[in-house]
């Protein structure tokens, strides 16, 4: 059974315009000792703070801005589903800008994502993300960051950007395009050098093909800030310098590759 609860501490976002990002409760919070009322900070904490910072800057530029990140905390298993009050009180304790809570279990969390118009699903669980992706929800795996940056850094994997469309576009691909277009629009609100949001492209192909990826993204309204064309070089040394908060490709991708 799915239940959705609004966080009355936080002003609700415009449902039509906001970019809905769902993060699992297991990613946001670290389960501490059973006695504690409040959870510890989880892997997704720096990410949430970065999302909040972007919202703050967007509102500074335009107090009537409606294209904001709309953060939803979702439980994806029955055990967490039972902990609803602790999740809510922990969220309030840290003053997180979370507008809604979705309490669902393994069986129905994807349905919950769809019902809530989630445009990006972030999880630390390597099974959950592909499950959601298969049903057309853009997903990415979150990993612990060593030195997370304050700036929200979103990385696109460019190898899929130019793949020829063989047949009807898979739902996950459409979801990725929609998300990236909105993210691109958000990026345009800020100047080139002083932005709380950075868009990074990484490709395992060479420069020539990556040129196409840059152009394609541009045509979707995404002006990439940084680009790394590896031409077969290993990805992890570059990733450890770039330090993206998450990596997006067609549907599902992970940080540790």
């Amino acid at each position, binding site marked *: 059974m799915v239940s959705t609860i609004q966080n009355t501490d936080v002003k609700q976002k415009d449902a039509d315009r906001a970019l809905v990002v769902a993060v699992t409760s297991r990613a946001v919070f670290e389960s501490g000792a059973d006695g504690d009322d409040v959870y510890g900070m989880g892997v997704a904490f720096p990410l949430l703070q970065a999302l909040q910072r972007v919202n703050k800057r967007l509102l500074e530029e335009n107090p009537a801005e409606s294209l904001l990140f709309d953060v939803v905390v979702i439980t994806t298993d029955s055990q967490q589903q039972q902990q609803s009050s602790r999740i809510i009180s922990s969220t309030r304790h840290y003053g997180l800008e979370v507008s809604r809570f979705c309490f669902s279990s393994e069986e129905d969390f994807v349905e919950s994502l769809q019902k809530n118009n989630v445009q990006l699903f972030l999880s630390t669980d390597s099974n959950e993300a592909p499950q959601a992706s298969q049903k057309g929800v853009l997903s990415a795996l979150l990993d612990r960051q060593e030195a997370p940056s304050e700036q929200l850094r979103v990385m696109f994997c460019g190898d899929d950007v130019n793949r020829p469309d063989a047949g009807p576009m898979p739902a996950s691909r459409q979801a990725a395009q929609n998300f990236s277009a909105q993210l691109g629009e958000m990026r345009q609100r800020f100047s080139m*050098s002083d932005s709380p949001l950075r868009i990074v492209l990484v490709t395992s192909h060479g420069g020539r093909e990556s040129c196409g990826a840059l152009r394609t993204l541009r045509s979707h309204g995404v002006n990439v800030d940084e680009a*790394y064309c590896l031409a077969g070089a290993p990805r992890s040394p570059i990733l450890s310098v770039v330090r993206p908060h998450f990596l997006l490709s067609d549907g599902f991708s992970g940080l540790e590759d």
Partner: protein
Amino acid sequence: MCEVKPNNSAPTEDSGAERDWAAAKVFFDSLKTNKPRPPKPQYAVTIAVSSRTLFDMVAERKIYEDEGLEKYVAYQVEHESDPLLPGVAFPFVKALMNVNSRLRKLYPDSEELFDIVLMTNNHAQVGVRLINSINHYDLTIERFCMTGGKSPIGYLKAYMTNLYLSKDSEKVTEAIEEGIAAATMFMTQTETLSETQLRVAFDGDAVLFSDESEIIVKEHGLDTFFEHEKAFENKPLAQGPLKCFLEALGKLQRKFYAKNERMNCPIRTYLVTARSAASSGARVLKTLRSWGLEIDEALFLAGAPKGPLLQKIKPHIYFDDQMFHIQGANEMGTISAHVPYGIGQKYHKGKLIEQPAKKE
């Protein structure tokens, strides 16, 4: 300083790296082209060039300085399809490519090649014009880092860079402090250089060797220097920032020697030093020998100006630590690169420069 390329990458990274490599290989093989595939970074000699050294971007730079970042990027995007003119590192890159094609003929399966990487601070939108220009000249540059304003140092390390060339002396200094061979290039009008042989010329002290002897000259004078060098003739000098690059060149040279191509080797190295052969030269040659390194021509000038000699050599690049020599060489049409290392940075024409307080 030479630990940049370990022989074995960490076991945990192997499967991911191998997967990247295999995927890229499949992709490259599927392209109906005879363009060569870039080598694996850990075996290659990686040269990172900045956009302003590879191409002439003087006019564009002026727009950036006068009108700001956004106007500059907009200009570049507008002129995306106009190829840029060749820059000061262009002949060097072409010469590297020539060495690569010779190596590929002799060793078709080897990954021991030059790997040229574009390492630029530029915004990725400017990258389209850079890639178009690279394609226009048919340069084999496949790896790019467009950092959008961030420091390239982390990426230089990530690519196991053997040499970094830039117009920005601050970045070059930072690279040298991190143990990466680097030099600042200056624009010059040059005559046509050899298209069949890469020629690299090095100053000795504070470039190939440490600045220990140069300190003696600056602080105690020439006579003390001569005595010292004679006394320590058999003690090898400590290594300088470009020693590992010479070593990498030597490794590739030996691949030609192994196939009987010594007389026709497409790499030639030169030592151009103010030392004199009679008094202080021996220590230099013995040091090189102790390192197991060869240099093709060692030219001892005994203090004579380097300009005329370099004009005869016509190197694709000449490394020196003293701006005075760089300017002299440049005036005579030699492509020079300044290595900001050692005591030479504190002096100009023998006089101590007033140093501003170091930036925090």
